[in-house]
């Protein structure tokens, strides 16, 4: 499904950068010595950006294989993702969502060999 990641300088740089992003986003309004007002346009954009980023990452992971549409309906990912989404809509529990999704995944992968 995915390539193996190897240690490299660029990977190390990526991880250090990600750590800095954690620090800088959490401290964005806490670190400056004077208080910054949050502009209205930024506040509005901020509302959608996390949702947009997560959805943009997740959608291709569910419906594409190597950049192509899933060729078969016997793909465990489709049913695991659908079961997870339905369970979340019903119970609104992230923990339960993982358990249900993985149960479907394992049943189809190990039981039916999909």
């Amino acid at each position: 499904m995915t390539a193996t990641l190897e240690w490299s300088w660029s990977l190390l740089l990526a991880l250090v950068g990600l750590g800095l992003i954690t620090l800088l986003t959490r401290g964005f309004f806490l670190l400056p010595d004077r208080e910054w007002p949050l502009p209205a346009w930024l506040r509005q954009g901020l509302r959608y950006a996390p949702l947009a980023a997560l959805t943009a990452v997740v959608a291709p992971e569910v419906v594409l294989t190597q950049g192509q549409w899933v060729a078969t309906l016997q793909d465990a990912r489709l049913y695991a993702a659908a079961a997870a989404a339905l369970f979340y809509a019903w119970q609104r529990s992230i923990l339960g969502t993982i358990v249900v999704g993985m149960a479907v995944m394992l049943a189809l992968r190990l039981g039916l060999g999909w």
Partner: protein
Amino acid sequence: MEGASARWRDPAFRRGVQDMVGPAMGIAAWGLVTGVAMVKSGMSVSIALATSLLVFAGSAQLATLPLLAGGAPLWVVWATAACVNLRFVILGTQWRPYFGHLPRARRLRLAYFAADLNFVLFMKRYPRPEPAPGQEAYFWGGAALNYPAWQLSSVAGILLGDRVPTEWGLGFAGVLVLIGLIGSMLNTRSTWVAAAVAAVTAVLSYGLPYKLNIVLAIAAAVLVGVAMDHRTPAGAATADDRT
């Protein structure tokens, strides 16, 4: 950190620890899944351990996983993580009244450990946005449990994931977590539309080089969401997230 034993005796610190006990269970389960997902998405054990210790932001770790594995350029990886983490920027405006007066080095330490659950518990305990005695101790009490709960469970997940066959598809657990998080943010019509725009754009433009489909999808979804807000001034959509 000065006088660890004095800290442990501080009642506010202990209260911070106690309040975190229940939530830490959920954090630990999530850390376990994140650890497994990292290893089963192609990270070696050492890379996964370094990621967990350095990045310390579950949703950003999971969201950047397919990008790192797919060889996306650094700036796309960072831009995606920054977008996922933008909720912390908003939370930061609310930390400021409590901790804004402290020396910067102390604010820096606080900021790195200011995860979602610390925020939720702290705001419940101190609803009035003003400095009060015990606040810092309370914060560190929660962090003293939250951080190891996340890291140790991540390490356990990484070691466990290393022993589970890849064919089981446990790497997909990361996507399942993200599906739950997306669900928690879908609370108005404009958020649904923005998510649909992001999903369709990301899939249809997948052929773009350097994973630019992610950047394009984020831009399109944010624009559509903001445009919808301008047409219908609805209630604020808030991100309800856990890491």
